[in-house]
């Protein structure tokens, strides 16, 4: 145990949740720093409860610490109260395990899960007293490395990172560590070390690429400044998920966190190809883990953590071919241990309802459908397979089983959307209510009734999706659409059974700018941070006015990144990266979408997206 905390007791007692900063959790790893060559600070740039819930960090934390020469520790964003104290008392930001300053580490890794965390990266660097700009760093600073979904378009934050690791983290770090050890031993320069890294597959050192723009502001070229580094960076991927490291001793926090349970990742990738979904493209092809392997992992992780709940994790768990066997096993072994099973992302059908009735309190739990759009036409455009019939049939069976709460998720602002699609949202919600009243006769309702929550989010086009060409709506259009949705719901016969929620439009617009942004945004992010922007993902701390003011000061039009219609042959900032699917495929899908046609999923028919080049997964399985 580390008795020497970086922050004095009386300060810890004066701030919210001191447990965020004291480390020493069950399964956290402490090593003797004299015994290791590499100290790695792994950061999720958000508050502890969010960051600790992230599976990716637990994987890399466990894997790095399994290396004898590496000690990996964790860092999260100090909440605003702690942030103020650290600045006022001039206490440098520290890692949780050793409580040593982050600046003393060899590497500082960030996982970038959403765009709205970008100012928090600067907070971490700033509090750690690490030079904010990569070009100002020396060997006295850690190597700052970014990974995670946002690094598939890292251009808006290239100034702050030495390295971006593109793809799944399990494959290349060992090589990077070995290069680092050799570099320090040989006494070569930091730039030379980065140059060596840039030769590895999946490694993008943005400083070594020169971007030229056309007069209209779009990109003319992005070219390497050395001829021995790649012109396109291919994502790294685990070829066999049964052989790769999986953490069966994850760190167990003291305080309640967002994902407070054992997380069992059952597969990566998705066969569905929803056209708005970035994850569906980035993690292709679908690779399943073997069910026997998963059984072992589940038992081990439960024994090592003492958690009372286990959750299956994947993009679409119903598509896991050995799901019945896995769930059967879990129900049996979890019942003995009084462990709960949580099953997110299951398609609602007879099988899942049967399973859910065994593992949940039907009266308390709710059904979740994500039709994403209000009409079949719109759902065909986005290639969302769910039909109205699926929803009503699923609801019918669920109502028979005793459920009476339904959550419906939709998006507003999808390409080609019309008023009819928007009004369709209220229509579906109403039909679900009607289904309830028709399925459950009055005498069987026992004073209960149907309870529907319809939520809409505003569609943000993302890189590496067929919709990367699509113009995004303005804030005004979004709010107008939310209003139409609300009115549409209000006009329904069963409107009093339907509650409607919608998201903030300002934050969606900002996310849209950052998602498809280019290098010119680095300046805006840096300035906005210096003006106090931080925790932008938290509504109460998001200052849209400051952001807009900063765009103006930097002479940058934010709408260039959002509402602009992109030409088919435009060079995108993220074209420097290859995530496995080709741009030709995405363009084909974009055109198919505009013609209102669906595409097959990977198990039905290969669409030739390009991911088969990795030589594994669903691409090489028999089709149905």
């Amino acid at each position: 145990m580390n008795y020497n905390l970086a922050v004095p007791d009386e300060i810890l007692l004066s701030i919210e949740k001191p447990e965020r900063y004291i480390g020493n959790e069950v399964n956290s790893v402490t090593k003797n720093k004299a015994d290791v060559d590499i100290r790695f600070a792994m950061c999720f740039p958000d508050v502890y409860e969010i960051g600790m819930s992230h599976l990716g960090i637990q994987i890399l934390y466990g894997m790095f610490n399994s290396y004898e020469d590496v000690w990996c520790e964790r860092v999260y964003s100090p909440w605003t109260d702690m942030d103020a104290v650290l600045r006022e008392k001039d206490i440098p930001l520290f890692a949780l395990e050793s409580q040593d300053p982050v600046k003393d580490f060899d590497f500082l890794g960030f996982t970038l899960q959403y765009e709205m965390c970008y100012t928090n990266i600067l907070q971490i660097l700033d509090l750690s007293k690490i030079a904010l700009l990569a070009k100002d760093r020396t060997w006295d600073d850690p190597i700052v490395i970014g990974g995670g979904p946002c690094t598939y378009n890292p251009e808006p934050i290239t100034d702050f990172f030495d390295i971006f690791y593109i793809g799944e983290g399990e494959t290349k770090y060992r090589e990077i560590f070995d290069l680092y050890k050799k570099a320090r031993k040989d006494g070569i320069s930091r730039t030379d070390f980065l140059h060596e890294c840039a030769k590895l597959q999946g490694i993008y050192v943005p400083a070594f690429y020169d971007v030229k723009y056309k007069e209209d502001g779009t990109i003319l070229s992005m070219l390497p400044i050395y001829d021995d580094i790649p012109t396109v960076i291919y994502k790294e991927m685990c070829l066999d998920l049964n052989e790769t490291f999986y953490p069966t001793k994850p760190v167990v926090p003291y305080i309640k966190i967002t994902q407070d349970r054992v997380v069992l990742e059952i597969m990566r990738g998705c066969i569905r190809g929803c056209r708005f979904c970035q994850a569906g493209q980035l993690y292709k092809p679908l690779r399943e883990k073997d069910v026997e392997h998963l059984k072992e992992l589940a038992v081990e992780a439960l024994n090592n953590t003492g958690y009372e709940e286990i959750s299956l994790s994947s993009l679409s768990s119903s598509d896991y071919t050995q799901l019945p066997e896995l769930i059967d096993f879990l129900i049996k072994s979890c019942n003995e241990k009084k462990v709960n099973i949580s099953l997110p992302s299951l398609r609602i059908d007879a099988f899942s309802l049967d399973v859910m009735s065994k593992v949940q309190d039907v009266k308390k739990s709710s059904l979740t459908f994500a039709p994403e759009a209000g009409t079949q036409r719109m759902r065909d455009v986005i290639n969302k397979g769910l039909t109205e019939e699926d929803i009503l049939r699923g609801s019918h069976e669920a109502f028979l089983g005793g459920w009476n709460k339904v959550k419906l998720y939709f998006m507003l602002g999808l390409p080609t959307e019309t008023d009819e699609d928007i009004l369709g949202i209220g229509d579906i919600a109403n039909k679900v209510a009607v289904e309830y009243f028709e399925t459950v006769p009055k005498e069987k309702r026992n004073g209960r009734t149907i309870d529907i929550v319809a939520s809409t989010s505003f569609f943000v086009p993302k890189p590496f999706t067929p919709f990367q060409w699509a113009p995004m709506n303005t804030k005004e259009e979004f709010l107008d659409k939310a209003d139409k949705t609300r009115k549409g719901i209000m006009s329904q016969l069963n409107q009093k059974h339907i509650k409607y929620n919608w998201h903030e439009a300002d934050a969606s617009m900002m996310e849209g700018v950052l998602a498809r942004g280019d290098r010119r945004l680095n300046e805006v992010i840096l300035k906005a941070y210096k003006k106090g922007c931080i925790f932008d993902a938290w509504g109460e701390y998001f200052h849209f006015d400051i952001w807009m003011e900063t765009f103006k000061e930097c002479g940058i039009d934010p709408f260039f990144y959002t509402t602009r219609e992109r030409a088919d042959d435009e060079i995108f900032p993220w074209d420097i990266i290859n995530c496995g699917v080709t741009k030709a495929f995405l363009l084909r899908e974009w055109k198919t979408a505009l013609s209102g046609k669906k595409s097959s999923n990977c198990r039905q028919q290969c669409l030739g997206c390009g991911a088969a080049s990795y030589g594994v997964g669903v691409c090489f399985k028999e089709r149905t």
Partner: protein
Amino acid sequence: MNRLRLKFSKNGPIKFIGHLDVMRYFQKAIRRAEIDIKYSEGFSPHQVISFAQPLSVGATSDGEYMDMTVNSMKSVSDVMNRLNAVMNEGIEILAIKELGEREEKAMTAAYAAKYRIRFRNSLKPDFDWINEFEAYLKKDKLSAMKKTKSGEKEIDMKPLIFEYNIDKEDESVDLLLSMSSAATLKPALLFGAFFNSLNKELSTNALDVHRIDIYRYMEDGETKYIEPFITDDINTRFILNG
């Protein structure tokens, strides 16, 4: 089925873990140790465990108590070994005693607690607090305003202090204070009133509180006394007057 009472310590950074999180910590530790714990009935069964008295965040202890019911066990020492094998440093199971069937829960049987009070180094008072405190404790009546559900009321703390021992060299005070459903005196209330009596204000979080043990009430013929929940040392007994 066996009812067990565990004595445990809470030291080091773990002192910042709040009471509810300590409960959650033990629920997980009991699973990791594969103790055959009894669960309550119902749709969401929970472990049958309860704690004597929450400890304030920031305070350390060498005498916390938890009661638990197990369906089966090899031996008391096996339970202790299993739990200690999965404990975090800072929390240690110090002793386990098997309870009689009719014995009261620690929560209701708690009667007093012994504390060792110091000041945190950076927040030490700028006056000779230890001698002043000694003089203060000798007063006939020690008034304090105690917060209640319906506002504040004045209480006399004197009868709630069973025993004290001042170590001037160590700059610490040991206090045996009432801690029961009828009357509980917390060190912070006593020190706050002490500071007020000198027209000073106790700065928040200045007290470094260490709980030494929790006591229960016992009678032996005519003698009424209190003693730590688990003890084999007769010298730890404190005879109550009358």
